[in-house]
């Protein structure tokens, strides 16, 4: 019992550390990808002493800069909620990752370690629950700042997240019809056949449509362009975090990138076999590597979309969510269940 508890604590700390570092470097990746797409060089100066290292130390410099910025709380703001809001958006974003499996199991000194923090028989619902709670940070930030742009951002965000949550949840239902379990560990293990290439998206080609819906909805859930209406710069200054500065602003940014990482990890787990790949059965350490590569590919896709597609208008966003994505995912559920009915 104490052994298990110790294992949990260590795994949680390691995952926390990796996630926070990953967020820092995903921001660098974002800037580099943006620069590449716009035919610029991007940040390439900050290195160690004389060595530039392609700007690899840029996140460190960014972090130092943000820490030393003045932390401003507007006079008319609601102090309690203003301070609470960044935490409310960061904590659920950090909590989601504990159910995501990133490898099978490895043995060190005769002690077998499962490469996931914990498993729940409702793992997927746990992730959905936390993403739906994450909206409060944004909404309360918008309200407590006592600024019309922030309020508009908060309102837009809550409307958008409620609308796209439905499409997201219903597109997951189609996957669940095939897998038959909510446990993410079991979902990944079921995809390990055929030399680790029996991924859901290869096994059930109908899921390609579902993946497109899921991916669009999760872009909307993570408030990324073309769905970044809560912080549309041209209309709302910076949306819900207009008034935030210093580390509170950083917490919102971290939450946004964490949500992107989590959404990509869930997509990897549900559609692309999680940590599965060739030779992973013989060499379990390949598992985390495959997982990371797949997640990074999906993150790159999100960035690609961000710098290619213009922002939706608000009414277009609502029409697209309710009149296209939602019916499309319901139709997918019907098709999937019919296929399963005739296959058995």
């Amino acid at each position, binding site marked *: 019992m104490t052994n298990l508890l110790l294992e949990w604590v260590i795994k949680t700390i390691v995952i926390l550390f990796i996630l926070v570092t990953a967020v820092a470097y995903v921001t660098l990746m974002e800037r580099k990808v943006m620069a590449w797409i716009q035919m610029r060089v991007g940040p390439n100066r900050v290195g160690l002493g004389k060595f530039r290292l392609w700007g690899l130390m840029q996140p460190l410099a960014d972090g130092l800069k943000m820490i030393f910025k003045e932390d401003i709380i507007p006079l008319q703001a609601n102090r309690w909620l203003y301070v609470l809001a960044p935490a409310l958006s960061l904590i659920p974003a950090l909590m989601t990752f504990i159910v995501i499996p990133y490898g099978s199991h490895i043995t060190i000194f005769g002690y077998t370690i499962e490469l996931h923090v914990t498993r729940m028989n409702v793992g997927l*619902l746990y992730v*959905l629950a936390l993403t*739906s709670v994450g909206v*409060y940070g944004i909404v309360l930030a918008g*309200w407590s700042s006592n600024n019309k742009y922030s*309020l508009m951002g908060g309102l837009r965000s809550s409307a958008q997240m409620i609308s796209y949550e439905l499409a997201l949840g219903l597109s997951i239902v189609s996957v669940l019809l095939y897998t038959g379990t909510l446990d993410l560990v079991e979902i990944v293990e079921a995809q390990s056949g055929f030399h680790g290439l029996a991924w859901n998206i290869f096994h059930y080609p109908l899921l390609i449509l579902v993946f497109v819906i899921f991916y669009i909805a999760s872009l909307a859930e993570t408030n990324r362009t073309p769905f970044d209406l809560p912080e549309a710069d041209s209309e709302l200054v910076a949306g819900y975090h207009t008034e935030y500065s210093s580390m509170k602003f950083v917490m919102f940014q971290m939450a946004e990138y964490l949500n992107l990482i989590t959404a990509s990890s869930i997509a990897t787990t549900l559609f692309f076999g999680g940590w599965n790949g060739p030779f992973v059965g013989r060499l379990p350490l390949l598992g985390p590597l495959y997982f990371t590569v797949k997640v990074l590919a999906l993150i790159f896709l999100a960035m690609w979309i961000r710098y290619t597609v213009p922002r939706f208008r608000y009414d277009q966003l609502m029409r697209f969510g309710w009149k296209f994505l939602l019916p499309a995912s319901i139709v997918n559920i019907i098709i999937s269940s019919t296929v399963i009915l005739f296959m058995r």
Partner: protein
Amino acid sequence: MELEKLLFIVFAVIAIASALNILLQRNPLYSALSLIGTLLALSALYVTVRAEFIAAVQIVVYAGAIMVLFIFVIMLLNIPKDQPQIEKQKALRYLAIPFAGLMIAEMFYVLRWIRLSTLPPVPAGNAEQAVGTTWSIGTRLFTDYLLPFEVTSVLILMAVVGAMVLARREGD
């Protein structure tokens, strides 16, 4: 076992405290936030009795969707701080006491058979068939309780259509 009891006490205290806070706050936004606190604590209590599915659904549906709408409406109306005084009707206030007594009596009447041992033990070997898991709820919902389930869905559809009709009455 002791840890579970400790967790139960902690979350029960949080649930009751935030439930009281709903009533005591003057600002509707704070009341709504306290309600979210109650719902989250209740969902933690569900986890302590191994009903993970209900716990997750509780958060997804109530804390995640319905309460966001509540807060959305409160923020949209942005009620001024000096709320208009609610009309106080003395007679109703005195009537409230017997009604509260009646409710408490009813609660005790309903709960009179409940003992700590009513939770059936988890059958060895097939933990997924225990009460409160996704499997047991899904199976029951689509076999024994199919008719109530379908009737509820029709009811919700009626509510949605009714809302559309009411909202569209003016204008076009």
